[in-house]
């Protein structure tokens, strides 16, 4: 029987014991909006989760708007900030990093009346801050918002958010940032960030699935996306999930307390292999999330590598997981200037709280053979008309 070695934390991290404990130990299942005692107990659990979560990321409890996940948080931020900024003056421009998560890109593209501008990135995936400066110099008054992630989920590249918020503050433009990949890995502080809104997701840090949050700075104008009971500060409707929120907070608290430098040490043998193997190029730049590597392998499709490694009991991912299990070319890698073939050839290895040195060793042992076989697959298909 295969041993499953899980090296795809960036897709979803295994749930932490503390998160599971917090999830199942809720006193009673009740609606936190109910007036009876069980309802109040549920509300108390939700409040505590909000306090714990806020404290971990340097936010006020009142900043936390629980959502169904990172995608909803991104959608709420992009559409909500954009709508709120259409006051007397039209502000059609929306600046988004070219390597943002599709939750940001696709929601931005759907906004009626919006002129979405994708901020170009360099070959390392870093957004061009000079481009942002130039845009704001000319069109600050017509710009609704800027959205740039803290770190990329596919390559791990950490963006210069401070520079972006400086430029935006001077121009009076709110900035949203997707912290889904970065949370628990980088030391982040919402209060000090100068950001208007920040997206978070529970399952990426070892919390339960189906929970996320948008941090919204006090005083930031934001229109809710869906009408209803307005349970989350009037900004998000829908009965909250106190268990999920408690699990989320527990996971984030634990993740934030961890020494993430250890993850880099664990990946040492993989880095050594990548440096020595002629077919492997490391796409992850020096300024990156701990525990994540994006590797470009010559003459293979990432899909084949993932298949072969999976058959050896090792779970990795080709770029980001998507759509009905189909691995397409990565828009992130294409934005970094890679062609379609290369953008389909990346292998993402991401580790986390439960990863051991033996796990990484197993990958390092299996990868060369998988590459050789994947290259053979590509050669078989290369001669086709």
């Amino acid at each position, binding site marked *: 029987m295969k041993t499953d070695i899980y090296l795809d934390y960036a897709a979803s991290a295994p749930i932490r014991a503390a998160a599971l404990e917090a999830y199942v130990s809720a006193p009673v299942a009740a609606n936190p909006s109910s007036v009876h005692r069980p309802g109040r107990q549920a509300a108390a659990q939700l409040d505590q989760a909000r306090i714990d979560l806020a404290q971990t990321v340097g936010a006020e409890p009142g900043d936390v708007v629980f959502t169904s996940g990172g995608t909803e948080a991104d959608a709420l931020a992009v559409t909500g900030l954009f709508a709120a900024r259409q006051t007397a003056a039209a502000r059609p421009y929306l600046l988004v990093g070219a390597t943002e998560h599709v939750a940001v890109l696709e929601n931005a593209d759907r906004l009626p009346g919006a002129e979405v501008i994708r901020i170009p990135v360099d070959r390392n995936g870093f957004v061009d801050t000079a481009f942002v400066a130039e845009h704001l110099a000319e069109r600050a008054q017509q710009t609704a918002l800027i959205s740039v992630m803290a770190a990329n989920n596919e390559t791990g590249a950490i963006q210069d958010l401070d520079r972006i918020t400086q430029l935006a503050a001077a121009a009076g433009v709110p900035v949203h940032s997707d912290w889904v990949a970065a949370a628990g890995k980088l030391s982040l502080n919402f209060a000090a960030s100068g950001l208007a809104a920040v997206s978070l997701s529970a399952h990426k840090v070892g919390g339960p699935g189906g929970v996320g949050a948008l941090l919204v700075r006090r005083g930031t104008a934001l229109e809710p996306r869906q009408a209803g009971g307005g349970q989350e500060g009037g900004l998000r409707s829908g009965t909250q999930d106190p268990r999920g929120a408690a699990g989320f907070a527990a996971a984030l608290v634990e993740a934030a307390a961890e020494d993430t430098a250890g993850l880099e040490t664990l990946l040492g043998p993989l880095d050594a292999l990548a440096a020595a193997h002629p077919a492997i190029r490391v796409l992850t730049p020096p300024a990156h999330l701990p525990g994540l590597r994006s590797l470009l392998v010559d003459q293979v499709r990432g899909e084949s590598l993932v298949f072969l490694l999976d*058959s050896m009991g090792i779970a990795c991912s080709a770029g980001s997981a998507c759509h*009905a299990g*189909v691995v*397409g070319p990565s828009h992130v890698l294409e934005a970094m200037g890679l062609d379609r073939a290369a953008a389909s050839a990346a292998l993402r290895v991401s580790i986390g709280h439960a990863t051991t040195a033996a796990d990484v060793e197993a990958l390092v042992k299996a990868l060369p053979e998988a590459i050789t*076989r994947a290259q053979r697959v590509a050669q*078989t*298909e290369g001669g*086709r008309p």
Partner: protein
Amino acid sequence: MKVAAALSGGVDSAVAAARLVKAGHEVTAIHMALQRTPALRRQGSRGCCSLEDASDARQAAQKLGLDFYVWDLSDTFTDLVVRDFIDSYGAGLTPNPCIRCNEFVKFRVLLERAEALGFDAVATGHYARLEPDDAGGAGLRRAVDLAKDQSYVLAASGRAALARCLFPLGDAPSKAAVRQEAAELGLGVARKRDSYDICFIPDGDTRGYLREQLGERPGPIVDGAGTQVGEHLGAYQFTVGQRKGLSLSRPAADGRPRYVTRVDTATNVVQVGPVEALDAPQFGTLAVNWLESDFQAEVDQLADVTASDATGGAADSAADGAAGGVPVAVQVRAHSKALTAQVTNSGDGFAVQLGEPLRGLAPGQSAVFYRGDLAVAQAVVAPFEGAGSRSAKLNPGA
């Protein structure tokens, strides 16, 4: 054997995979993602069949305890099946995209990728039987259930590819039995309805699809005498034998229904005529894909005899030559009956003389030749002049 079982999301391929597991093979489930054009993806998010199929396939694999992967073959499918479909219609031919998909996607690209990844064979839920030989080939026989037989759409794939395939449903007694088997296995797809449409035209409106792809090209509809009797928006939208959707302005003199008898996309003329005009007594084919060497030897032998008999006149009438050809049965559509025929070599293909006229033969169709339930050869019907008329001239190899 290590088998890559192609799971479409339907009941047949799921039961086929289950039968392989039962037979002791090491089975991995593969779902082919074939359509990724933005239009189809948008439809997908509105609840299109294709995403639902992927999900059905995954659930079936889970039920059977199989590893499951989605392989993206959409580029290949678009280039070799969809593009060819549009181009063929544009050239006045009647292509069968399912045959193309079998030939180029399932039993070529999928098969090659599976082999490169260490699989010994690819399995599908097709209804047909295989007879592997010792030389790396396999013969193709009709399924036990003749009503479901799919040997017709498999023949073009050829002996070499078929030798690396498994069709576990070839001996299934009936579709009902397969559904019963699925139900007993607890497969959710047991009662899923069969799909008949062309998968990349989910609304079934082939003419609308072609119009979108090729644009409107108005032209005349004429009768056998060349008199204009109506107008069309593009000859490519018509196929020989078609009766519906002609909107003729002038009724036929005898008041009988008229059918498309000829499609000429070069001049953009569609010709119509009475049903008898669809009766083709003979036709020619493009290059032959031989499936049985005995049959090939017989036909070749006849050609040698003919060549030595004829003194320079062999080329003038391939049709006449076919009269004394090798007896065989021929089928030109997926669910039509096979007709008796005699074939001879002619240029690059066959000259086929039919025992009884074949109604609505169209260039581009795949003709599969059978001896009993054994498929012995396959070839594409060649373009011909005055399709269906008694004075048809064969133009094999054109």
